[in-house]
């Protein structure tokens, strides 16, 4: 009896928290489905629209180029993930396995970047990006470069991959050398496949981070056609000043891709295997 009571208590708290977690989205979805004649400020509020309609979605879809925002986000997040995997793994390997002059220095230099928050150095980063012509006013490609390169590698990724390389038995490398591999073949054909789980974790968390990034793109972007989803969604507020039906519909539309991604990749997020991916 006591156990049943306890179980009931735990489940009520968890259900309550789950509802709190999704309620802001539910309310946004509800508003987005309400037609023009329904008062969205009605007291008492209604969750289920009395006059259900998709017209807000159709309206906002025609006025806002979500496909372009989505493609921009895909290009930026995709390239950021690729570069992070490649550069982190490349840099991590010698730090884990090789002996060379300046190893300690390199290690602490990477560690030092953990302590430098992007928000504190964004102004010079912007000035440098301008100087390198990596802005969308030059051309789209340079615009993408400017969005991607400042986040092409970071200390968390390097340390995550270093931990992964440290767990590979040295005999693997020896065997590869005996088999006649050179260092490049060994790295790409033998070692990288062995650290796939860490690469997957790094890829997924880099993707989520890049996909949701707002501060940097809102600083560097000047052309609307280059907007990523977060910048585009923020822009909805200005476009439809008080048309909350449209703002809600646009926000929900922009969120669908990442939610689908999350549901497909959920085991990486909720299995507890991502301990190494903790970011500051």
């Amino acid at each position, binding site marked *: 009896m006591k156990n049943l009571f306890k179980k009931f208590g*735990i*489940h009520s*708290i*968890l259900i309550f928290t*789950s509802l709190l977690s*999704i309620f*802001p*989205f539910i*309310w*946004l979805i509800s*508003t987005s489905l309400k037609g023009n004649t329904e008062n969205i400020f009605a*007291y*008492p509020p209604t969750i289920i629209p009395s006059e259900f309609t998709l017209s807000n979605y159709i309206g906002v879809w025609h006025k806002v180029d979500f496909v372009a925002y989505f493609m921009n986000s895909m290009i930026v997040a995709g390239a950021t993930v690729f570069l992070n995997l490649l*550069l982190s793994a*490349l*840099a991590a390997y*010698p*730090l884990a396995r*090789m002996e*060379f002059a300046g190893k300690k220095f*390199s290690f602490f*230099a990477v*560690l030092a*970047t953990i*302590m*430098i*928050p992007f928000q*504190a*150095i964004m*102004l*010079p980063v912007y000035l*440098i990006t301008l100087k390198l012509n990596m802005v969308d006013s030059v051309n789209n490609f340079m615009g993408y470069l400017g969005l991607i390169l*400042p986040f*092409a*590698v970071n200390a968390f990724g390097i*340390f995550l991959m270093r931990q992964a390389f440290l767990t590979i038995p040295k005999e693997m490398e020896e065997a590869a*050398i005996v088999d006649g591999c050179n260092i490049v073949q060994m790295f790409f054909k033998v070692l990288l496949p062995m650290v796939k789980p860490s690469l997957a974790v790094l890829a997924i968390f880099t993707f989520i981070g890049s996909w*949701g990034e*707002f*501060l940097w793109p809102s*600083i560097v972007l000047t052309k609307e056609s280059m907007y990523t*989803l*977060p910048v585009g*969604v*923020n822009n909805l507020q200005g476009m439809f000043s008080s048309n*909350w039906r449209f*703002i809600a519909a646009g*926000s929900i539309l922009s969120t669908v891709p*990442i*939610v689908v*991604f*999350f549901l497909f990749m959920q085991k990486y*997020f*909720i299995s*507890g295997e*991502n*301990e*190494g991916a*903790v970011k*500051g």
Partner: protein
Amino acid sequence: MHQYYKKYVPYLFLLPAAVVLMVFFFIPFFQTIVLSFQDYNTSIYNPTWVGLDNYFKLFKSPIFYKVLWNTFLYLFLAVPILAIIPLILAIFLNNKIRCLNLYKILIYLPVIVSIVVAAIAFKWLYAQQGILNYFVELFGYEPIGWLTDTNFALISVVIVTIWKGIGYYMMIYLAGLMGVPKELYEACDIDGASGIKKHLTVTIPHIMPTIALVSTISAISAMKVFAEIYVMTKGGPLNSSKTIVYYIYERAFENLDLGYASAMAVILLIIVMIFSLINIMCFERNKYQI
């Protein structure tokens, strides 16, 4: 093992990452410090060297203290809650209960959604005639200006940060809880300890390092908060929700006061460095051992 690589190979492996970190971390880091000693107000192209003037201006400015106060208030409101609530949830979810994964997915959902969408969703909840004020009025109070009242704006924004962070820290705790030896709980059961006592004597002491880790990580991210404020309040009303990063952004990119903004950035650098050092030296030592 014999030397299977040429002497220059390690440097080749490090080179691409080194270039990126050099151009986008180290040079900007030093440039921030240099900029903080310069004045760009008279001309954006011909800065003048002004020594510590920007810092003196900063320390004389009431807004600076207001912004610093707001940022630390943000931290003191968010960090304790983000250290405790996710822990309680993680303890509940560390059992074999029904719908375990469903709970985890729903509570984690705010983490993966863009902060901009989260901020817009809350802005809508906070609307003057919005759903939250409906409940406020239901309880017989005057509607609250969640984002327009100087007493509420900062708290309203902190709520978004907390709401979005709970799932993230909960997963860190769940990983930490997996490391608590199961035998200790069994020993407790034999002793007849109650559920709460069990957690106080076994769970909490064992995951103290994780609690400390969560506290420092959430403190660091509280220092860096930006998007919530940009989308919801723009620092207003009357600077009541302006935090340090938002103020840097405003000064640098809207007022083009590069020197002053950089002096503030240096202050931010110092604060975050202290937190990061505590984190690295005390809680994540093993991860960063050479």
